[in-house]
Every structure is written in C-alpha cells, then in structure tokens.
C-alpha cells in the first residue's frame, strides 16, 4: 500500500484533516453548534460551483465562500436577532440553492463536481498536500494560542461577555477556523460528510474524557485514527474513502458510548 504515491499522499492529507477537523469541531460541539460545519459545507458547495463556472481553482473559491458563510452565520446569530438554527438554515439553503444554479449554469453536473461532494482523497497531488498541511498547521497553531479563551466561551459565554472578553471576535475566529477546515476537508471526505469528521470524534471523546483538555486531545486522536484506518480499509476492501473514514468515526462513537455507559454503572 505505501509503495504507491497516491496512498502516501492520501494518508498524509487524511492525517492533517483527521487532527484539524475535530480540533475545530470541539469548540462547536461543546457549544451545541454541531451543525455549523454542515452549514458552511453547503456554502462551500456554492464556492466550488462558482470556481467551476469562473474557471478558477474550486478549492480557493470554496475557501472564500466558506469563510464568508461562517462569518455571516455568526453575525446573523449574534447581532441580527435571528435564532442560531434559523441563521444556519438561511445560510444552509441559500448556499445549496446558489450552488445548484451556478453548477447548472456552468453545465458541470458531472464527475468533476462529485469529487467535491463525496471527496477524492486518492487524487490529491503534492501541491494539494502542501496547501492542506500549511493551512492545517496555521489552524492548529491558532487553536493552541487561543485555547483558553475558546474554552472559556464553552464554559460560560455570558459570564465572559460581562467581564469584557471580546466574544464577537472569538466567535468570528471560530467560524473562520471552521470554514478553513471545511475547505481543506472537501477533498478528503467531501462536502456532504465534512461535518461528520468535526462532530463524531468529539462526541466519542466527550463520553470517555475526564477533562476538557483530555477531551480535545482524545478527539484529535480519534479523528486521526479514523482517517488512517478508514483509508486503509478503503484501500484493501475497495470502498469509497470518505464514507469509510466517517463510518470508522461513527464506530468509534458507538464504542465510546458503550465504554462510557459501562463506566457509569
């Protein structure tokens, strides 16, 4: 398996996304905003469609659309007087509708589009990996630097707001991190499954963790394990890699649920 370059590149890209997606998802799941990744994913679809239509790199246009969508969701939620789920639904449906219209305009309802919807990790190039690794490192470094304030928002956002912590800025930072993660993960698991990698490892880790810090580290470990094991299984069993990675993460969640339940008895 490792003698083939496409698998080496796939495993490396999977490892980066496997660690980054749960690290960012951690701060969404713990604040009951698990579906934000999904919402941003649908906006990213519109970005991909715009890229195909304009003949620009769909990853770049998806990144721009995802960042914009993430920030809009956050602004609607915090300032627009719109409830969180409605803000998400508004961006979610507008994104997918715009994507469908743009794709139809470009005449691109074909295999090229499906690689973004369902992932195409086996076609990742060295250039793609450099972008994924670079932006992934920036994302993880940002989380490392901002861990305390982001954890503080999870624990008590209202108390932090009263004490003058710049909540809006931090929320926009989380939205931007989520958008970058979605754009990077598109090629690995696909737009339709990207949120799963942000949510399932965190849900699994939360069942067995003994502190927030341990939950974050365990989330990243489960994400990494799911990405690598999923790819290996997909390679040997000839399965679609994106779906297999997410199914392994779902299996990890069920295992953690069982361990957590047994421990409480």
């Amino acid at each position, binding site marked *: 398996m490792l003698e083939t370059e496409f698998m080496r590149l796939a495993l490396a890209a999977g490892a980066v996304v496997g660690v980054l997606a749960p690290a960012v998802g951690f701060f969404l799941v713990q604040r009951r905003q698990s579906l934000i990744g999904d919402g941003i994913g649908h906006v990213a679809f519109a970005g991909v469609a715009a890229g195909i239509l304009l003949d620009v790199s769909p990853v770049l246009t998806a990144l721009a659309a995802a960042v914009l969508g993430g920030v809009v969701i956050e602004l609607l939620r915090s300032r627009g007087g719109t409830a969180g789920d409605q803000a998400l639904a508004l961006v979610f449906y507008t994104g997918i509708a715009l994507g469908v219209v743009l794709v139809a305009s470009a005449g691109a309802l074909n295999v090229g589009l499906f690689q973004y919807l369902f992932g195409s990790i086996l076609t990742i190039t060295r250039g793609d990996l450099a972008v994924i690794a670079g932006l992934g490192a920036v994302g993880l470094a940002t989380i490392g630097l901002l861990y*305390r304030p982001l954890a503080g928002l999870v624990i008590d956002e209202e*108390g*932090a707001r*009263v*004490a*003058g*912590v710049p909540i809006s800025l931090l929320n926009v930072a989380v939205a931007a991190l989520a958008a970058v993660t979605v754009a990077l993960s598109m090629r690995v698991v696909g737009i339709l499954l990207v949120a799963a990698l942000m949510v399932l490892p965190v849900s699994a880790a*939360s069942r067995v963790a003994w*502190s*927030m810090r341990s939950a974050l580290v365990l989330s990243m470990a489960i994400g990494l394990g799911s990405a690598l094991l999923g790819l290996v299984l997909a390679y040997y069993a000839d399965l679609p890699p994106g779906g297999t990675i997410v199914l392994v993460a779902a299996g990890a969640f069920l295992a953690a649920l069982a361990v957590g339940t047994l421990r409480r008895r």
Partner: protein
Amino acid sequence: MPLAAELSGVAFGYRPGQPVLENVDLGLGEGEFVAVAGPNGGGKTTLVRVLLGLERPSSGKALLFGEPAHRFSGRRTLGYLAQRSQLGADAPATVREVVSAGRLASGGLIGPLRRRDRELVAEAIERVGLQAVADAPLRTLSGGMQQRAFIAKALAGEPSLLVLDEPTTGVDAESQESLAGLLDRLHRELGVTVVYVSHEFGAVERFVQRLVLVRRTIVFDGSPRELPGVWHDPSHVHARD
C-alpha cells in the same frame, strides 16, 4: 456610601409597547449584600442585564461605579453567574477548568495561565470548599457543588461586583442554605458587593442587608425585616397582579 450600580428612571422592553421595566430607580452601595426578588417574568433578569450593561435602557440611565454601564471600563471586575449555565451536561470540564475561565478577562487571552493566575484559581476553589474535587469533572458533582464551582469562577476574577441570577435553581433545600451561608461568608471576608437574584428569597433572607422586590418596577426596597408579612408568602410573591 459610593454606589457600585445605579439605575435612574429606567424603562426597557424587548418589543415596542411591551415594557418589561418601567420607572426603575435603584442604587446599590459598594459592599452591600442585596437580594433582588419577584415573580417569574417580573423583570428581575432584565433588570440585571440592564444594570450590567448587556441591554441599553430605552429611557433613563444605568451606571456602574459612576460610568455608563454599557461602556464601563472596569468590566474585568464584574463577576456574573447567569441564570442557566451554558455548559452542556456532557461537557467534560473539571472544576479547575471552570474556575480558570474566571481569569480570562484579567489574565490575558493568549497562551497558558501565569503562576499568579493559577494561585488565584486555587484560592477561589478553596474558598468555596471544592479543593478535594478540584480535578473532578463537573458533571460528576451535585447541582449545589456545580453552582459552587461557578461562584468560584466568578471569584477568581477578583470581582468588586458579584451578580448571581437564580443561583439555586435545581438545587435542593439543604444546598440552597449552604450556598446562602457561603455567599454571606464571602461577602463578609472579601467586602464584595453581592446581588443575589431569585424568585424566592427565603434562603438568603437572614443574610442580606436589603431586599428589592421587582414587578416591572420596584415595589419594595428595604430591610427584609420591614417587609409586610403577606409578602413572605411565596404565593403572593409569585402572583403577577
């Protein structure tokens, strides 16, 4: 006595024509221990939100330590325990992690906590008597102990004004008494201004110096001993009209 917080002629409503607060005048002196009570939906939480500058009054003025509340420069000295904790029941935070969040405004946002901040966190945990469970996940503790952890979080910020909104919701009667005693001790030891907001003030009645009853406006403001007997009947307090 210098005022920690002041509301003058305050009115507020979330929708036009539906006032939640009307003509509220209230001054809270520095170092006072005040209970704010009243029926559910009577405007207690809104009053606190206006007082803390989270909402701007539609008329009148709200001041914190003499400055307009919404742009108060000393926010890091405000401790607030919201009505319902946002921390999910499944969240794995430990007591120490929760209390450390109280140093966010004062201890800087970037990087790990400094030694002095960690000492203040440990001190706050000790003050509320949770040192034996400092590294235990919050979800494994009783409701009363969880509230103690959030009080310690507010204390870790070295507040000059501590506002607790319904701190005894979901807490058994024994723990309510214990929390009230803890607040009384903290008030005496630290000299911090404490505002205790609850629809039911029985637990703190013997500790507070002043009781404020809110039902859209202030309907009573004085010592709990001066309160007419009928107001001590919870059914009277809970009635809207």
